[in-house]
């Protein structure tokens, strides 16, 4: 991916030099291995901070809506900045969704599309070391070398430590862009789409419940899933509303369930399975299990995949007279 990184830096520098953009949102290294952080650049010389590699898992679309809001205290006319952003397949789909939901203006946005071969799930990579912390990691072709805080070294295949979303990803190249730096031909086989959901569906009702209880009993209500999600831009989340109060603020399981079910339902027809929620969760809860279930149902029932184009109507903002109603109760 290093050629892409070089091309990206050049492109971004050019965009600033040609005064096409005022601000660029990309990835830069964070303080720990296999982690990057969103960065906000405002000049051509800063382009050297950018990185593009298999740890750029952050869905940058989540950072965009705030940039187009008039800052507090600014009086009179205010012109939104022209913002450039680097987008892999999932980021670009989220951008499509945000444009459709009028959270970001298409005409103030410059999207640099990049193809993606999948991002590393940091927890999986660290998991190769057991309970040891991850001190260092080196990507080396198709494998990854991880070094533990006790000095232990392990080598794992990149494919084994990719995020679950990336394993099942069908849209690796940007679906919306102003310039595309690279595409990728790698694609998950059609058959494996929703494989994780299908496997879960095959369990019994009580097994499913028990499994989710064990997952959700780890939830600490930190809302990292919500805050990392590009779709969760609500001014006030239902989880924070006090009138009506939908749920309590504790980690009592019924409250946790209402939160995660509510969030999953709000994602219906909108989730692009970027995996940001899973990557953000400090407790490793498999939130995809819910979101992908809804994605699967939306696709099977309404024939739509979320946010693939600006033109297609969102699944829950449309209907067909002949939509399935076999689930309804008859006398």
């Amino acid at each position: 991916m290093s050629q892409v990184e070089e091309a990206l830096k050049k492109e971004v520098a050019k965009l600033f030099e040609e005064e096409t953009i005022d601000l660029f949102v990309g990835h830069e290294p964070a303080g720990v291995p296999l982690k990057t952080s969103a960065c906000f650049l405002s000049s051509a010389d800063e382009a050297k901070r950018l990185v593009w590699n298999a740890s750029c898992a952050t869905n940058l679309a989540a950072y965009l809506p705030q940039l187009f809001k008039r800052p507090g205290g600014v009086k009179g006319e205010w012109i939104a900045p022209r913002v450039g952003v680097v987008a892999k397949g999932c980021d670009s789909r989220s951008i499509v969704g945000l444009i459709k939901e009028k959270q970001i203006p298409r005409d103030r946005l410059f999207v640099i599309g990049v193809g993606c071969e999948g991002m590393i799930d940091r927890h999986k990579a660290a998991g190769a070391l057991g309970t040891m912390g991850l001190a260092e990691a080196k990507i080396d072709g198709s494998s990854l070398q991880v070094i533990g805080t006790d000095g232990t070294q392990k080598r794992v295949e990149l494919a084994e430590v990719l995020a679950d979303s990336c394993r099942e990803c069908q849209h690796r190249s940007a679906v919306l862009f102003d310039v595309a730096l690279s595409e990728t031909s790698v694609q998950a086989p059609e058959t494996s789409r929703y494989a994780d959901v299908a496997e879960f569906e095959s369990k019994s009702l009580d097994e499913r419940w028990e499994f989710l209880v064990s997952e959700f009993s780890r939830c600490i209500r930190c809302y990292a899933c919500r805050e990392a999600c590009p779709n969760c831009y609500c001014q006030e989340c239902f989880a924070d509303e006090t009138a009506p109060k939908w749920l309590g603020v504790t980690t009592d399981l019924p409250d946790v369930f209402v939160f995660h079910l509510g969030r999953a339902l709000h994602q219906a027809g909108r989730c692009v399975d970027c995996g940001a929620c899973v990557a953000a969760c400090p407790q490793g809860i498999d939130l995809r299990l819910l979101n992908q279930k809804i994605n699967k149902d939306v696709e099977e029932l309404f024939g739509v995949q979320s946010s693939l184009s600006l033109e297609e109507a969102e699944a829950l903002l449309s209907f067909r007279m002949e939509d399935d109603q076999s689930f309804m109760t008859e006398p």
Partner: protein
Amino acid sequence: MTEKKGEKTSGNGWEPRIVAFLCNWCSYAGADLAGVSRIQYPPNVRVIRVPCSGRINPLFVVKALQTGADGVLVSGCHPGDCHYISGNLYARRKFALLKSLLEYVGIEPERVQFSWVSAAEGVRFAEILGKVIEAVRAVGPASKMVKELEEVT
């Protein structure tokens, strides 16, 4: 819905409690018609009148389950009959996903049901409600999502 756990699960005496969200223009009138026509339907239901099935936030259903409803019935106008032209058709999509998701997470599918009942269908309303109550009775009192407020320390 404040009965304590003990009262709720007591074997033979237990009666399922159903929350019914009924569209003002059809099912609510249907339920009313069933009443005035002296069609017997079980008393286990608490009706919440809504202006349209499209008004029903899926969270209403989730919240009803969390606060202790054993079952939820949502009923609106037949497709094509919506007072607001298409509220029920948008709703139908939400309901399909909600029903599927709840079963997927392990909530018995009997607990959450959806139907179309017109203002003229008093008999149909009574039949559907009866069916829902019996189905919920068969799966027993809800416990999975119910928030209990007993002391925990």
